[in-house]
């Protein structure tokens, strides 16, 4: 399958701080790719390098198989982007904002109505953007990115700052895009829950480094559900569970986190602890949070490094 985005050894520093470190992304056509990482992980810096807004200190970006360096203008015809907050002219109407970008692109006039329709702004197209709500502004930003019917859509935190209704609306819109327009979406977010709902493939970045890249299903099998256990005699409980072959960690609030998957596991563990006369006051299955995933992945990675 053709790689739409490919980066090799992409690196960017700001002073002494390495924002993006030896990044090797590979995004193939179709579907939604979620680029996941906490704030400050280097997502925006990476995206700006993909778009040629900032220059890498090392490595290269290839889009549609061609290096961006030297081909920027022709490649960007096939890309639409919304980087962080939408860039709009508040003194112009929604339609006029699209017209400014249309003129810069030299694109056909009738694309504007299509873009407005896709983001459901036709009704408000002739109002000035300064009167728009945050959600409408974000949708107009998306319309700007979609105007030229791109093959690749790059969205940086598209739901940031939106209220729940706005988030929902935006998410639905993005989910529809690959099917309706055949566009591949590369989307960054700091929320796992967000990305899980729309992405088929995931890349996880942390402190400038890519920790994981692959199908969402692969990440999910890697990430076992955790059983959170509250027990009075913590040390004895760890001892007991470890002997029984369970993987046990200290969790937050003096709880234990046990690598268990199913409710049957929960029953088994509960029975085991009770049989040993340990007093259980809390037991619950928990989906791993993004923090847990980072913790697991970073632990695995440093373990891997030690092994190497």
């Amino acid at each position, binding site marked *: 399958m053709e790689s739409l985005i490919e980066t090799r050894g992409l690196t960017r520093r700001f002073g002494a701080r390495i924002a993006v470190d030896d990044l090797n992304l590979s995004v193939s056509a179709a579907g939604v790719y979620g680029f996941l990482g906490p704030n400050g992980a280097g997502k925006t810096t990476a995206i700006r390098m993909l778009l040629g807004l900032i220059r890498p200190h090392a490595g290269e970006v290839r889009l549609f198989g061609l290096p961006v360096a030297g081909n920027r203008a022709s490649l960007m015809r096939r890309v639409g982007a919304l980087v962080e907050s939408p860039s*709009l002219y508040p003194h112009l109407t929604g339609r006029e904002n699209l017209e400014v970008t249309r003129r810069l692109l030299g694109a056909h006039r009738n694309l504007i109505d299509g873009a407005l329709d896709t983001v459901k702004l036709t009704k408000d197209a002739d109002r000035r953007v300064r009167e728009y709500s945050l959600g409408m502004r974000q949708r107009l930003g998306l319309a700007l990115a979609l105007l030229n019917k791109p093959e690749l859509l790059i969205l940086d935190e598209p739901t940031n700052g939106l209220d729940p209704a706005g988030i929902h609306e935006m998410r639905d819109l993005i989910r529809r895009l690959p099917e309706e327009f055949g566009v591949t979406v590369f989307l960054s977010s700091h929320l796992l829950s967000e990305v899980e709902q729309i992405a088929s493939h995931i890349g996880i970045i942390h402190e400038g480094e890519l920790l994981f890249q692959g199908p969402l299903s692969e990440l999910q099998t890697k990430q076992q559900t955790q059983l959170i256990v509250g027990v009075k005699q913590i040390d004895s409980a760890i001892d007991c569970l470890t002997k029984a072959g369970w993987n046990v960690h200290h969790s937050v609030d003096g709880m234990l986190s046990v690598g268990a998957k199913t409710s049957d596991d929960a029953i088994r563990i509960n029975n085991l602890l009770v049989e040993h006369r340990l007093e259980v006051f809390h037991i619950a299955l928990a989906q791993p949070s993004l923090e847990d995933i980072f913790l697991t992945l970073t632990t695995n990675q440093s373990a891997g490094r030690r092994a190497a």
Partner: protein
Amino acid sequence: MSLLRALHAELLKLKRTLAFRVIFVLPFLVATLQFFIAWRTKRFASDFNLWETLQTSSLQIWAVFMMPLLIALVTALLNGIEHSDRQWKHIFALPVPRYSIYFAKVIVAQGLIFISTFILAALIVVVGFAAMYLRPELANSGPAPYGAIAKSASLVWLASWLIIAIHTWVSMRWAGFPIPLGTGIAGTFFALFAASAAVGKYYPWLLPMNIFLEGRATTAIVLGVAGGIIAAVVGCWEFVRRDVLI
């Protein structure tokens, strides 16, 4: 081609902007002042030449004071609409070369200053006829020197290209008003002192004024136009290399 597209986009952005309004206001201020001087002067000297006085004094006030400040204001406003909602990251991710965006900004600023200067030129004629009507002793001042007024206005404008190029770069480089306006005020302020010095022949903020001075006019036009083009190219060269971080 891409420059034409960028210019076409710039024209739409001007809609409802202060930049497009202020170019009409400042010439009116100068013309109003001239009108009151012509109307209220108690007695005109015997060799008083209405058209000559109107033309030189209006355009000189314009060249040394109003126009440089207008340039600072207009370029800051033109680029302010890009800084305010962090437009650069959107524009520079489009398949348009950055130099086209840059030169479109320079050309639009030049265009606005041209319009403003010629509004003043037209108002000079209006004030002249108004003064002749209100003060009968001026009635035989002769025909309006349309050609001479247009020529002076054109030369003032050409000599301003270097200031426009400097301000375009400054206001693209720094968001907000303090630095662009500070540059304009400093440039105009030092012009007051540089005027009588030898360096005044080459000082960017004095070039539009210098077209009225014998011995300095040619330098003013050559330096204004050539310097303006070179400064725009250098500014563009610097700007397109910048990382777009905001």
